[in-house]
C-alpha cells in the first residue's frame, strides 16, 4: 500500500470497502418488497461482479493502455475455465491448483496468440484475435469434445480420478476445506444479507487484481504502454521496440482473463464453450468502453452494469410488472405493462442496446465521465476548469 499515491490509495480503499460491504450495498431493499426484484446481493451475482471486474481490468491493461483492441479475449477466459475444471477432475476440488493452472495455461495460450496477432495493428489485429477466438470456440464445441465436453460443457463426474481426493475431502469446490458455497445469512428485520465465502474469495482476487493494475498503470512499463497508444513511431525512434511491450501487456491481460476463468469455474465447476464465442469477447469490450477506457475504476463499473442488467432485468416478467402497477386502474395498468414488457424480461437486450447507445452518445468517456460530471456538479465546480477537465478525460491514468 505504501507504494500507492494518495489518490490511488483512496481509490483502492474505496474499492475495498465497496467489495467488502457488497452484501449490504447490493441488497438495499427489504425481502418481499416490490423493489426486492432489484436486489443484487446474492452470492452468484456478486461473484460474477467480481469475476467480470477482474476480466475487464485485465482487458483494460491491454486496450486502455496500448489501444490494441482484442476481440478474442473470451478465449482466454474459456481456456482458464477448462484448465480449472480439469484440475477438479484430476486432482481434487481444491481451488488453489485450479486457479494456478488456469492462469498459467491462459498465459501460455495468450503468448502464442499474441505472438502471431501482434504482428499487425489496428483493425487487422482485432480481426486476427477475433478469428483465433472463433476457431477456439468452434473446435471446443465440436472436435475437442473429449477435452471440453462440447455442447454440454466440461463438468466433474463421480467417476473422475481426482487423485488428491481423500476420503473426507469436500465434494464441492473449496479452499483447503472451506467450501465456496458456504453462506452466512444475516437477518436484520425484513432484510436478509448473504455473506458468501466464494464471493469473498473472488473479492480478494479482485482487490489483488485491482492493486496490480494500479501498480502497472503507475509503472514505467505502463508509461511505455501508453506511449505505444499515442505514438508508436516516436517510441521506435526512442530506441524501443514496441512488440515486447504489447506482447507483455497481451499476456498479462490474458492471464487476468485466465484468472477470471479459473475463478468462474471455482465458483461453479462447469465450463461451457459459449464462454469463448465472439459475443462473449464483444461483451468484455463493451464493459470496458461502457465503464471508461483507460480508467482504473471504469471497467469494473462497466462489468457490474452489464451483469446487473443481464441477471436482474431478464427476470422481470409480466407477472412482476402487474404486481408493481396493481394499484393503478386496470386499463392504465395494462397499458403501462404492455409498454414496459418490451424492455424487461425477454426484452432486456433491447434496453441494453439502447443504453449502450445513450452512454456512448452522451458520455463519450463512459460511466466514469458520467460520475465525474456528477461529482463536479456536487462540488459546484465552475466551467472555467475546462483545461483540467479535458486533461482528465484525455489522460488515461487518471
Amino acid at each position, binding site marked *: 500500500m505504501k507504494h500507492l499515491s494518495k489518490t490511488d490509495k483512496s481509490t483502492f480503499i474505496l474499492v475495498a470497502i465497496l467489495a467488502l460491504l457488497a452484501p449490504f450495498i447490493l441488497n438495499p431493499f427489504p425481502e418481499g418488497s416490490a423493489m426486492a426484484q432489484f*436486489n443484487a446481493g*446474492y*452470492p*452468484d*451475482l456478486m461473484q*460474477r461482479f467480481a469475476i467480470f471486474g477482474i476480466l475487464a481490468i485485465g482487458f483494460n491493461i491491454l486496450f486502455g493502455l496500448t489501444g490494441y483492441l482484442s476481440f478474442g479475449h473470451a478465449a482466454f477466459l474459456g481456456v482458464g475455465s477448462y484448465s480449472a475444471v480439469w484440475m477438479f477432475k484430476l486432482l481434487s476440488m*481444491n481451488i488453489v491448483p485450479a486457479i494456478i493452472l488456469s492462469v498459467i495455461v491462459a498465459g501460455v495460450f495468450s503468448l502464442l496468440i499474441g505472438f502471431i496477432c501482434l504482428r499487425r495493428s489496428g483493425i487487422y489485429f482485432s480481426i486476427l484475435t477475433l478469428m483465433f477466438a472463433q476457431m477456439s470456440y*468452434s473446435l471446443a*464445441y*465440436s*472436435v475437442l*469434445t473429449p477435452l471440453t*465436453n*462440447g*455442447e*454440454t*460443457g466440461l*463438468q466433474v*463426474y*463421480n*467417476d473422475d480420478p481426482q487423485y488428491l481426493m*481423500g476420503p*473426507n*475431502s*469436500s465434494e*464441492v469446490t*473449496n479452499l*483447503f*476445506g*472451506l*467450501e465456496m*458455497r*458456504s*453462506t*452466512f*445469512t444475516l*437477518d436484520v428485520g425484513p432484510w*436478509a444479507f*448473504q455473506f458468501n*465465502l466464494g464471493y469473498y474469495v473472488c473479492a480478494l482476487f479482485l482487490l489483488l487484481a485491482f492493486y496490480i493494475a494500479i501498480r502497472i498503470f503507475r509503472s514505467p512499463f505502463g508509461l511505455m504502454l501508453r506511449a505505444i497508444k499515442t505514438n508508436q513511431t516516436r517510441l521506435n525512434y526512442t530506441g524501443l521496440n514496441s512488440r515486447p511491450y504489447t506482447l507483455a501487456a497481451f499476456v498479462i491481460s490474458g492471464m487476468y482473463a485466465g484468472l477470471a476463468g479459473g475463478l468462474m469455474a471455482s465458483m*461453479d465447476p*462447469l465450463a*461451457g464453450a*459459449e*464462454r469463448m464465442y465472439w459475443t462473449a469477447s464483444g461483451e468484455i469490450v463493451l464493459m470496458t468502453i461502457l465503464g471508461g477506457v483507460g480508467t482504473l475504476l471504469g471497467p469494473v463499473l462497466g462489468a457490474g452494469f452489464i451483469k446487473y442488467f*443481464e*441477471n436482474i432485468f*431478464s*427476470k422481470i*416478467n409480466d*407477472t412482476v410488472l402487474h404486481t408493481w402497477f396493481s394499484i393503478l386502474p386496470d386499463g392504465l395498468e395494462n397499458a403501462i405493462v404492455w409498454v414496459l414488457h418490451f424492455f424487461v*424480461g*425477454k426484452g*432486456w*437486450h433491447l434496453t441494453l442496446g439502447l443504453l449502450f447507445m445513450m452512454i456512448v452518445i452522451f458520455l463519450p468517456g463512459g460511466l466514469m465521465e458520467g460520475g465525474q460530471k456528477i461529482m463536479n456538479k456536487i462540488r459546484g465546480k465552475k466551467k472555467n476548469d475546462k483545461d483540467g477537465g479535458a486533461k482528465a478525460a484525455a489522460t488515461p491514468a487518471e
Partner: protein
Amino acid sequence: MSNLTRRGLLKSGAVMGAGLAAPTFFTNMAHAYTNAPTGSSVTLGFNVPQTGPYADEGADELRAYELAVEHLNGGGDGGMMNTFSSKALKGNGILGKKVEFVTGDTQTKSDAARASAKSMIEKDGAVMITGGSSSGVAIAVQGLCQEAGVIFMAGLTHSNDTTGKDKKANGFRHFFNGYMSGAALAPVLEARYGNDRNAYHLTADYTWGWTQQESIQQATEGKGWNTVNNVLTPLATTDFSSYVAPVLNSGADVLVLNHYGGNMINSLTSAVQFGLRDKVVNNKNFEIVVPLYSRLMARGAGENVKGIFGSTNWHWSLTDDGTKAFVKSFGEKYGFPPSQAAHTTYVQTLLYADACERSGTFNPCGVAEALEGFKFDGMGNGPTEYRAEDHQCFKDVLVVKGKENPTSEFDVLEVVEVTPRAQVEYPVDHPMFAGGDLGKCNPGA
C-alpha cells in the same frame, strides 16, 4: 452447491490440509432441505430461453407454465388436472401453498442458464427449476440442481445423455430421446421405404447431433439399411449447399438430417432446392428424413416439410382426453394450439406438484421418491412411467410427417403412427446410455 439457500446457512467444510480451522458459522437447522417454503406460498423457477434462436419455444414453454400455475392454484378450467390419473392435486396450490413463480433467461447458453437458475435458487428461493430448450442447457442446469439440492424437471431435451451419461438423481425428463426417435421411426421407414435403403447422414457437430445420429443409424441398420456416409456439419452453418451437393452422387437414396432448429430449416431447404426429392436413385424415390421434428421449427421450413417423416414427443392433433383438455385450455387462453415444448413443460409442472402432494413434502428426496417408478395416464401420451433407474419417462412416441394440405398455419404435421411404448423401451444399461451415475438425491441444506 448444496448450500445455496437463501436463508439457511451452512455447514462449512471439514478441516483439512495444513490444519486450517473452518469457521463455525451459525447454522440454522430449522430446514432439512434447500429453500423449504416457510410462508403461505411456494416458488417455482421457470428457466427458459427468452433470447437467442429458441426464444419462441421458450415463450411457448412460459405460456404453458403460467397455465399450469393457474390450474394448480385452482384457476381456469383445470386442463389436464381433470384427466390426470392421479387425483392428488386439489386446485389449492401445492400442499396448500399458493404457487408462485419466477422466470429467467437461459439464452440457450450453459453459463447463462446456470446463472439464471442460481439466482432463482439463491435469491428467489425457488424449490424446483424447470425448462430449457436444448440438451446442453438441460444437462448443465440438471448438474447445478443436483449440487444445490433442488428438483430439476427438464424441458425440451432430446439427447440420450440427459438421462444417460449425465443423469442425476435430482433431475427428471418427461421428453423422449434420440434412441426412442430411432426405435419409433425405423419400423415406419422400413414399411414405407423398404429395407434395402442407403442412408446418408448430415449431423450437427455437437453432442446432441452425435447421439441422435448414432441412435438412428443403429435402428435403421437393424432393419437392413446401409449407412453410406455420416458428415458432421458445423453448428454455425447457415448455407448447407456444400454439404447437400455431394449427396446426389453418393449412391444414397435417403438423406437423414440430424439437425434441429435453424440448422434443420436451412439444411432441409437446401436439400429440397437441390431437387433431391425429385431424384430416382437405385430405382427408388429419393427420400429425406428429419428424425426430430418440432412444429414451431417445421413452420420455418414452409412447404419443404411436406411428406417428410420424423418423430415428436406429442402433437396437439391427438384425440385422447388429456390432449383435448390441454389444447382446449391452452387454445382458449392464447388463441393457438400448444407446441410439444409447451406440452412437456406443462406436464412436468403437474407431475412435480402431484409428487409433492403424494409425498407430503417439497423435500427433493421425498419428491424424487414419489416420482421414481410413478405410473400415470391422461397426460396426452397414454400410459406413462417414470423409470426409477434413470428418471426417464417411458411412453408412446409419435411418428409424424409434414402435412400435404395444411388447413392453418398450425396444421403443419400429421400423426402417422403412435409407436407403442414397448417398442421404444431399452434397458438401463444400454450402451448408448452407459457411463452415467444417478448418484443419490440431494436435499441440500
